[in-house]
């Protein structure tokens, strides 16, 4: 469950999950919604996969991702989005638990 909380603590990862709620998407389609680099997004995908929140399938050169959240995890996602949780990563990339400034 710790992996799930870690995954949901980041707004980019929550945004990815919100996008996948609508339909399964390829990595490229998801990347179009973010200004971040591909390697950063890959790291986010890895965290989401580790938490079991997304599933993936490779077909040809494309990787398709889909939302793999349980009802409880979806409820946690909704709660984290409503509270706009944002946990800053520490120096080693691990979350510190300190909340960042709320987005307006």
């Amino acid at each position, binding site marked *: 469950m710790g992996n799930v909380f870690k995954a949901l603590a980041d707004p980019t990862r929550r945004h990815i999950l919100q996008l996948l*709620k*609508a*339909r*399964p998407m390829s*990595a*490229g389609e998801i*990347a179009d919604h973010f200004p971040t680099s*591909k390697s950063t*997004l*890959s790291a986010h*995908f*890895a965290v989401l*996969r*580790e938490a079991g929140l997304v*599933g*993936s*399938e*490779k*077909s040809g*050169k*494309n*990787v*398709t991702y*889909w*939302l*793999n*959240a*349980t*009802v*409880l995890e*979806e409820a946690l996602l909704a709660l984290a989005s409503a509270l706009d949780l944002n946990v800053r990563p520490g120096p080693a990339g691990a979350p510190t638990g300190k909340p960042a400034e709320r987005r307006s």
Partner: protein
Amino acid sequence: MTDTSQIDLGLTDLAPFFERFDRRNRLVFVAAISVSLVMSAVILAHGPPTPGWMPAKAAATAWWFAILFTPVFLVGWYVFGEFIALGRRRGRPPAGPLLTGTDDARNGVRIANAGFAFNLVLMATTVIGQALWMPFVFGYRVSAGEWIARAIMLAVGAATIYLGNLWPRTPVPRAPERTAAIRMKVNRISGWMMVITGLLAVLLGLFLPFLRHLF
């Protein structure tokens, strides 16, 4: 953009797992229906009860209910399960493999196991429910009846929550894309409805006041 660093491209054959799964479900059904039919025969042989605290017509209705409800429900539930199994077998040869990706295989196995647990709880509680009618038929009231009824509701509720929580992960064919999106949404909504229903069952089992007056 591709991200293949964590993606296992291997396929898993789930056919042997589901063969065992179907066999286990059939065994549970045969056990439950056997016990239920024996109880129905005993109730039928005894004849309608005539307890002083219930009108004769109501007692006769309850008697028929005690005989018929459980076996009919068990058969209906089993047929429903067989329909689901048929849907799974459709489109592949009888002894052919059921190949899925790693994520789908993991989800499929977890949901099937949760489904088996749900099936087991439902059949067991239905049979226990029928067993509760036996003292009634013989003219007794079960002093622990209220607590057994509450325990049944809690067990069914918990099993429903457990299965419903996992339900959105049910594997769906990824093509065509629009159909996949609709199926995933249906699974998500179904999961939410099951969890809410399970929570209601648990709350009713804990707080329903009229159970006290039934037993």
